[in-house]
């Protein structure tokens, strides 16, 4: 088989990903501003600066919080939905379609829809007023803490259907005989879940956990659409801060260093997933 079969893929991949990734890593050790022909090697300066930059550290912490919280929500919600729909419920097909639908919509659009839903005169506040809970009205996206919660909620809203589908596939591998035997032994719902169902869908749990964790670390569209990183930069994620530093402030070197930090985070979790999955499939 001739080598040229692999050439188109290899050339475009090397040109678009491999070479720029190496260049980007190199940039992280310079003070380039993106325009001037001059760029000086500054060693680890950018990383040292990052480690003392409250804005960057804030974005890092927040990104990890978004990733972990949405991972927990998506997995609990997805598992609950999958268990609920893996029954004799008559509307299970249409319900599955509804819960999965957000997965095909652009995250940016979803962000805008929720920006409206949570706006001061939007439907959520309107509903609270209508049912006599006007005291609970909030400027949802104007408060950094509530806005962060809202971003987590929206990320989870969009991904829960994908997790549900993966869990539904995993549940097909649960032996009905085992469940029946447990029922005969008088095992309750919770015992069956913990002792039989969860162990047999462990691979699905791992896949879902890692998928949501990694996509959470990369979160950009939802933050961009819902808060633009505000108020006062207090909902900035690593990815949105990267764009601001690189393309608005022209701090290429510094932004590249931030990208390296993000890459190390994402790569470690991806490698962890890969390793765990391989171990799981060998066992």
């Amino acid at each position, binding site marked *: *088989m001739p080598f040229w079969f692999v050439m188109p893929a290899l050339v475009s*991949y090397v*040109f678009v990903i491999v070479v720029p990734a190496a260049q980007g890593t190199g940039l992280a050790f310079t003070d380039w501003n993106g325009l001037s022909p001059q760029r000086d090697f500054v060693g680890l300066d950018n990383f040292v600066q990052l480690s003392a930059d409250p804005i960057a550290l804030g974005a890092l912490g927040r990104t990890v919080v978004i990733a972990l919280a949405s991972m927990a929500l998506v997995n609990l919600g997805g598992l609950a939905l999958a268990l609920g729909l893996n029954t004799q419920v008559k509307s299970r097909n249409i319900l599955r379609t509804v819960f999965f639908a957000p997965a*095909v919509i652009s995250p940016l659009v979803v962000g805008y829809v929720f920006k*409206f839903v949570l706006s001061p005169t939007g439907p959520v506040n309107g509903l609270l007023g209508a049912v006599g809970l006007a005291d609970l009205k909030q400027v949802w996206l104007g408060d950094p803490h509530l806005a962060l919660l809202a971003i987590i909620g929206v990320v989870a809203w969009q991904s829960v259907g994908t997790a549900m589908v*993966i869990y539904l596939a995993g549940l097909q591998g649960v032996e009905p005989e085992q469940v029946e035997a447990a029922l005969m032994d008088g095992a309750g719902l919770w015992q069956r879940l913990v002792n039989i169902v969860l162990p047999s869908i462990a691979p699905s749990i791992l896949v879902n956990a890692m*998928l949501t964790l990694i996509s959470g670390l990369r979160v950009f569209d939802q933050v961009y659409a819902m808060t633009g990183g505000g108020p006062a930069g207090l909902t900035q994620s690593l990815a949105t801060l990267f764009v601001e530093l690189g393309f608005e402030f022209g701090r290429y070197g510094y932004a590249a260093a931030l990208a390296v930090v993000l890459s190390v985070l994402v790569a470690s979790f991806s490698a962890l997933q890969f390793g765990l*999955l391989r171990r799981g499939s060998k066992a």
Partner: protein
Amino acid sequence: MTRYTVRTLLLEIALIVAAAVFISPMVVALNIALRPSGQAGSPLALTTSPSLENVVAAFTEGHLGAALLNSVVVTVGGTLIAITFSSWAAYYLVRRSGHLPRGLFMLFLAGLLLPIQLVTLPLYNTLHSLGLIGNLGGLLVHYAGSTMPFSVFLYASFLRSVATDYEEAAHIDGCGPASAFVHVVFPLLRPVTGTVLILNALAIYNDFFNPLLYLTGSGQQTAPVALQSFIGEYVANWPVIFAGVLVTVVPILALYFILQKHIIKGFAGGLKG
């Protein structure tokens, strides 16, 4: 477990209520998009006389038509490139043994670990110096590379489970490798081609980050970039914004409802890897 009991009925009701609440934000957006500009009132009140006035505004004032066309061109082009390049590559990587194919496969896999931000700044500069910023060409080049790791990975995983009998028969019949690929191998790959097509097409159509960087200020737009500029232009003219959302989302949702079995299977199979 197989009978429909009172508990199943309660579960069913709970799930239907949950689904209604779950999807309500999209329904509210649809309600607003169809509301004529004269009709004031709460966003929760049902739009009584739905009109396409906002949709027309989105097309005439927001130039959504051109943006949608660009989105379709990039999505179709990018997806075709992804399928062609990655299926050829996977064929070579899986069917050839030795250090080189194995090393190259690992190189492709490494791309799965990288977030796009690491390549963004240098790639932007390279494409800029080649005159590929501000037009769809740069975007297509980007997708030709960025779709490779995942697509090659999917094709390779599938190809490993395909027996070589047919290829050997084709070889004996005098087929060259290229013709064997086109007539024998590629048709056998149809299930995974479906997955590669669906995942890439959705990712490209819905991509916002890269078109935002490559097309900003050029007059060329894809649908998500056009929507984002709506937000700036109309500040809070939500009816027109949601009309734009409606127009960009409806084709995808329609496809989803028609192909949902394949799409859901593609997601579950592809993402599980």
